[in-house]
């Protein structure tokens, strides 16, 4: 009797309940709620005007998380053809996500900040990020490449330029290999010292042997120094060489310290050539870009930083910067000196206390054990740790910037 009742119970209530829950959870995971259900893209997926408009909205609202190719968010990778086909199949669902966001994630809803038309334009643009055309267009002929003429069609009586002909085995004239072209050289001309805040001209000459190479782009960078000393390159700009092969830009530095300026030229099809110069930038008082935060402090005592010149060289990413001796100057010197003084005082008192214990111990060896062992060890440990504390305070990582008094 009981088993029958159990079967009825399972059949009528439990199994359908489980099934219902399973189906609803699957459905809810993919369901597009009203009023978005069944919406369609008013633009064609290859509408170039909508794509352009969508791109500008994308760059403003979506680029920061999703990136240039749409691949930056792993769970929503726009750059794959699969995503593009999913988008084409269910535009209402993706419009719903763009409008309302996804709960409990960082995807926010944009229905209040982006109009409906713009949201469809963004989706049209996103489609192009993943869309791969099926047939590749035929390649155009490269006009710079001369067609190779097979040797049996050559005129055997014509001597080739630049070299002496040789009689080959079959009677043809084979040209000797031309001499290798001279290497491309990039030279930079820039002042060694400059003031921050003043315009600094940088010029680069690109030449190959005696010939200058005109009308090629040269990119200028400077290496940014942060505490991690990772060799980040910040772009200063791009210039094109003139008929003398000289590219020039003007850079107004807004920082001080030893700054490497780098110019890079990439010959076609080859590896980029770089040249760098080290510039010492100092502050021009009054014209320098100063931060507005904090108290203005100057003067006495001067900032003292002692570091080897090798400290400015970039190190491998992940390595800590070089430790240098450093004592701040000006107003920060006061709290620094007070703190350092307190640390020295406290640890000296610790050593004094241990010294008292040392003096408690008699100067005899009782049964082969020196009673002064513990106090001496104590004094040693306390002195070493105290010194370590002082050293922590007076050293710091090299930061590449001169601290202005």
């Amino acid at each position: 009797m009981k088993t029958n009742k159990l079967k009825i119970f399972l059949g009528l209530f439990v199994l359908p309940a489980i099934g219902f829950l399973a189906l609803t959870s699957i459905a809810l995971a993919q369901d597009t709620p009203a009023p978005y259900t069944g919406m369609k893209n008013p633009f064609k997926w290859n509408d170039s005007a909508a794509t352009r408009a969508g791109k500008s909205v994308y760059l403003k609202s979506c680029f920061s998380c999703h990136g240039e190719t749409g691949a930056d968010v792993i769970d929503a990778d726009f750059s794959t053809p699969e995503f593009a086909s999913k988008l084409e199949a269910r535009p209402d669902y993706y419009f719903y996500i763009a409008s309302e966001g996804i709960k409990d994630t960082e995807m926010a809803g944009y229905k209040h900040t982006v109009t409906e038309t713009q949201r469809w334009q963004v989706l049209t643009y996103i489609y192009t990020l993943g869309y791969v055309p099926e047939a590749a267009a035929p390649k155009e002929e490269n006009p710079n490449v001369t067609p190779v003429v097979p040797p049996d069609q050559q005129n055997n009586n014509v001597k080739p330029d630049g070299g002496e002909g040789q009689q080959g085995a079959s009677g043809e004239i084979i040209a000797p290999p031309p001499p290798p072209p001279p290497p491309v050289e990039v030279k930079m001309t820039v002042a060694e010292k400059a003031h921050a805040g003043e315009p600094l001209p940088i010029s680069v000459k690109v030449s190959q042997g005696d010939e200058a190479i005109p009308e090629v782009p040269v990119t200028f960078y400077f290496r940014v120094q942060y505490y991690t000393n990772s060799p980040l390159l910040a772009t200063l700009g791009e210039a094109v060489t003139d008929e003398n092969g000289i590219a020039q830009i003007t850079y107004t530095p807004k920082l001080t310290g030893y700054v490497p300026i780098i110019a890079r030229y990439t010959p076609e099809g080859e590896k980029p050539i770089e040249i760098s110069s080290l510039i010492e930038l100092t502050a021009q008082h009054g014209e320098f870009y100063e931060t507005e935060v904090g108290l203005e402090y100057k003067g006495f005592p001067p900032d003292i930083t002692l570091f080897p010149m090798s400290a400015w060289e970039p190190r491998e990413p992940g390595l800590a910067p070089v430790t240098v001796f450093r004592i701040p100057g000006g107003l920060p010197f006061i709290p620094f000196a007070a703190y350092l003084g307190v640390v020295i005082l406290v640890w000296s008192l610790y050593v004094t206390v241990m010294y008292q214990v040392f003096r408690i111990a008699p100067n005899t060896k009782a049964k082969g054990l020196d009673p002064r062992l513990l106090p001496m060890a104590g004094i040693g440990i306390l002195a070493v740790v105290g010194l370590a504390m002082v050293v922590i305070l007076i050293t710091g990582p090299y930061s590449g910037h001169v601290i202005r008094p």
Partner: protein
Amino acid sequence: MRIAQVENFAERVEAVSMAPLKKTSMQFKVFVGILALIVGWGLYAYATQLYFGLIMTGMRDQVSWGFYIFNFVFWVGVSLCGALVSAVLRLAHAGWRTPLTRIAELVTVSSLIIAGLMITFDVGRPDRMLLLFIVGRFQSPLVWDVIGLMTYLLGSIVYLYLPSIADFAIMRDRLQKASNSLKYKIYSILSVGWKGTTEQKARLAKAARIMTVMIIPIGASMHTVTAFTMAMTLRPGWDTTILAPNFVVGAFFSGAGVLLVVMGIFRKFLRLEEYITPKHFRYISYLAITLLFTYMYFVVVEYLTIIFKLRLEEKEIFTNLFLGPAAPWFYTFVLFAFLLPAVLLLWQREPAIPRIVAAGLLINIGMWVKRYVIVIPTLQVPLMPADVHFYTYNPSWVELSITVMGFALFALILALATKALPIMPFAELIEEHEEKQHRLHEETVKA
């Protein structure tokens, strides 16, 4: 008559203080065994974290400080117990505090060790802690915290050691017959040839005086720099000037609470009933209730000045704290740290000791919860306009295991310390008793 009384007292107090060093009961072994198991499990959790990385914890990009940090703050808070009893009460010439000094100092040293461990666990790559020493910047509050912790830890160890010299000397003398044993050698080294001469006493008194006066500002500065790691930021809830005094007073308060609990436990299990009397509990409970109201004042002042103006980001944090997901923690803190202990400590019904020890336990729970309330809701405040809800923080089993391990390790260090040191400074107690008897004798002779 008088001499016999003194000798009896001296023998008794020495026997009681030395009893744990001589015999180990089964009860103790079981207790230490359980603690060791818990510590072992915690170490396994840490090994998992070392292997897989901090992803094993619940800390993420937004809530990047979690259980480890607020446990660190809690244990640093507990550590002011020693400064309170040994130093403050010694300066106040409160003679009743003598039986408690060793316990208090042990609590301080153990809690600072646990605090240092908690920070090591939080760092994730412990080898990178060396970088704090090599490339630490003096501008960094974390460097101040490191310096403060080292200073306070070593100072507390010295301060624990100084009064024990006399005790170690007596222990060495008792072992004269077994003068080649290891124990005798250890006690000889530790007692640095103490004979009780006038000169030695003068030197020890001078050393103790220096440490007593110094350890209070060192302890206060330790808590100040711990608070500065938060107060020097611009986060809501942390960017308040009262945070450092808050931490110092809260630490004294926590310290009093822990002291009550540890006193109760040691008194019961080590049979210290004659020396740690209900009077001691009552006096410490007066301290605790004073500190309770002082801390309540600080907390109320801090919150009131923020809530009155209510900047946008502080509105977020107080919504979270009073009405949001962190509310259970906040109201638990108020109940366990303020309301219940106040009732227990003010409504003075006998028997005193269970009531007062219970209050101490509640204070500890409440202050532990308060450290959560200080650290985590601030990090939950959303930073970007697109974030409409508070960031979540769900501690993982690794963090919970290590938290429990912290408490177990604290108890384990205290338990093992009873086997290494006498739990009361009995040499000092004997001396004080002698002086008291001498004074009484003088008065009876005069009368």
